[in-house]
């Protein structure tokens, strides 16, 4: 059975560009986590930075985290896809440069211009602040987002070019000949399939996002250029939902690539795998109306579609990708180290986070839980335990000095601190959501404060663990570029 044999794949070191992405990720992630902690402490009434400061932090935390999730996901996708299709290093670096410029514009807008219209910049709030920030501050924020989006658009265009050149088009790269015809076992590897899905949805989302940003920038200076707020909201959430979801579809490539190396088992693109990725391509785009369930004026059929796709979307996550991770690990004799542990955990985080998510996408539930802390509760679950675990798992894998290297005690302790901290932190959000605590409130009612306190302690634990992860990655940076064996067991090697 050739289909089931695992062929050892070499462990490539990361290019300098990818390492620059990861270092940026580590720095921004830590800073934004501290911003998050400050927000939680403010709600917990343990510090007092005031509502203005809270909403500034909220704007920066939202934009910064979404952006850095994109950078981290792109680093993983680029690193592995580059082993199948020739990608441009210049475009990779160009995107990072534009990201840094965009972030500087956003930071200037928020901390100099006092912009605090939230990362979702819902029309018409940016241009309508009751004098708290200027038109220029709003323009710098939206301009910054536009610059960041342009960088990602260029990166995705280069990836699209490479995929089309290497695989003869998106349909082939998604494995449609094998999906709809006979499975000859020649479907592109999971990395290519996933990258293609991400590229298709991101190209569309980024164009939609850039369009609404451009429209709002024009409207800022020429209000007679009117924008329908409902259309603006639909466009913003289409862009925002697809972009943040695409980050985890990029990062999961680390799991597809690295777990087989640890377990010496293949993760192949079979029919079920291909079907699930084709379905995800469509679903991730058509699910966005679940952000508008409380806009009764939105076409009802689209709202019902959002409700239904929310349920369907859990099937590929649970039954294909999550289940696939369990299969490959079960009775595999896997070597558990920080890399494999974090990657295994990440699949739990993704699957678990999907549960409160699809339930909230139920129209009847959304009616009493929309815009409560339930929402940050579910997305921090799959971002902290899912996406961020994938990213640190990837960093540990890259930084591993040798296959036999053992992890120091402090790293293993940090793993458990991260797990416990994240679980506690997200459960505090979810519980508060159940108690009807509104999201995005700088000040909480007295009866809500205890949850905020508990969450703050767990957040400290997360940050402490993250410090260890980051310090280890920086300490091992010299190994991250080398082409030595990390997880792969070479042919004929005796497995300890």
């Amino acid at each position, binding site marked *: *059975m050739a289909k*089931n044999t695992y062929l050892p794949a070499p462990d490539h070191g990361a290019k300098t560009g990818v390492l620059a992405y990861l270092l940026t990720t580590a720095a921004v992630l830590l800073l934004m986590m501290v911003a998050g902690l400050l927000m939680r402490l403010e709600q917990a009434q343990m510090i007092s930075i005031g*509502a203005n400061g809270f*909403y500034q932090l909220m704007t920066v935390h939202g934009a910064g985290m979404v952006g850095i999730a994109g950078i981290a996901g792109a680093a993983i996708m680029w690193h592995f896809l580059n082993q199948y299709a020739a990608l441009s290093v210049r475009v990779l670096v160009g995107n990072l440069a534009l990201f840094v410029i965009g972030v500087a514009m956003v930071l200037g807008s928020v901390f100099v211009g006092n912009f605090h219209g*939230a990362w979702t910049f*819902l029309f*018409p*709030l940016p241009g*309508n*602040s009751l004098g*708290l920030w200027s038109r220029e501050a709003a323009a710098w924020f939206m301009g910054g987002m536009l610059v960041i989006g342009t960088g990602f658009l260029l990166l995705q265009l280069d990836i699209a070019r490479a995929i089309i050149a290497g695989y003869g088009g998106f349909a082939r790269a998604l494995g449609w000949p094998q999906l709809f015809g006979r499975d000859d076992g020649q479907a592109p590897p999971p990395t290519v399939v996933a990258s293609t899905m991400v590229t298709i949805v991101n190209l569309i989302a980024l164009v939609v996002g850039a369009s609404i940003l451009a429209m709002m920038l024009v409207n800022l200076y020429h209000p007679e250029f009117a924008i329908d*707020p*409902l259309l603006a*909201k639909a466009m913003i959430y289409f862009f925002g939902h697809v972009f943040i979801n695409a980050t985890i579809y990029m990062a999961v490539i680390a799991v597809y690539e690295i777990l087989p190396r640890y377990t010496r088992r293949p993760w192949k693109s079979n029919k079920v795998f291909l079907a699930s990725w084709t379905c995800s391509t469509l679903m991730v785009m058509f699910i966005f109306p679940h952000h508008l369930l*409380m*806009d*009764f*004026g939105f076409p*009802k059929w689209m709202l019902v579609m959002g409700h*239904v796709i929310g349920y369907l979307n*859990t*099937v590929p996550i*649970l039954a294909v990708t*999550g*289940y696939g*991770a369990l*299969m490959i*690990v*079960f*009775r*595999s*004799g896997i070597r558990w180290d920080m890399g494999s542990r974090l990657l*295994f955990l990440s699949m*739990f985080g993704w699957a*678990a986070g999907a*549960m*409160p998510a699809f*339930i*909230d996408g*139920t*129209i*009847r*539930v959304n*009616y*009493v*839980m*929309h*815009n*409560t802390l*339930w929402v940050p509760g579910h997305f921090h679950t799959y971002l902290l335990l899912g996406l961020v675990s994938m990213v640190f798992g990837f960093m540990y894998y890259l930084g591993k000095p040798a296959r036999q290297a053992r992890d120091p005690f402090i790293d293993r302790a940090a793993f458990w601190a991260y797990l416990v901290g994240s679980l506690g932190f997200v459960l505090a959000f*979810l*519980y508060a959501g*159940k108690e*009807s605590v*509104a999201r*995005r*409130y700088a*000040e909480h*009612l007295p*009866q809500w404060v205890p949850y905020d306190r508990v969450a703050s302690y767990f957040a400290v634990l997360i940050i402490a663990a993250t410090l260890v992860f980051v310090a280890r990655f920086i300490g091992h940076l010299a190994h991250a570029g080398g082409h030595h064996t990390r997880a792969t067991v070479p042919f004929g090697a005796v497995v300890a």
Partner: protein
Amino acid sequence: MLQQIVWALSLALMMFVGFGWAYALLKSGRREEDYTPLQKRAYRIRTRLFWLLVALFGTPMVLTLIDLPYDAVRPAIGAGSVQEIRATGYMWRWELSADRIEARRPVEFRVTSGDVNHGFGIYDPDMKIVAQVQAMPGITNTLRHTFDREGVYKIMCLEYCGLAHHNMVAEFTVGTRS
């Protein structure tokens, strides 16, 4: 209360997922060299899991579509004529055309905004959300609700609208006709 069910259900499902991971983790040590029979067995279990998901998730997916909160499909429940209340959000206050509502008589809130997006969230006397709708400039959303329970209700803003978003609170009283 719906929130309680949702919380219990989410916890149960997340724990169910957690058990799956814990099981694979505990059984990860001893290696079975031949992956093929393992895979065959796992795929059979997956087919069953798939149908379990279809039944477990599909049923509530369909059933919860029966009672949608949307104005057009939601009949007025309760006795007597509809009480109409106009509600407009402004940065950062609510304007209500009335602040007394009769219990067990259907209410129609006509909700809109005078400036940016707001969220019209109705909190019951225990400070639990019972209904909500978006308040958007240029659009009037109709929210139908019948209050069974008497007491003081609060309206809190549920869409971020700037500096005093969290202070955008109003009150109304549900009681019997005075």
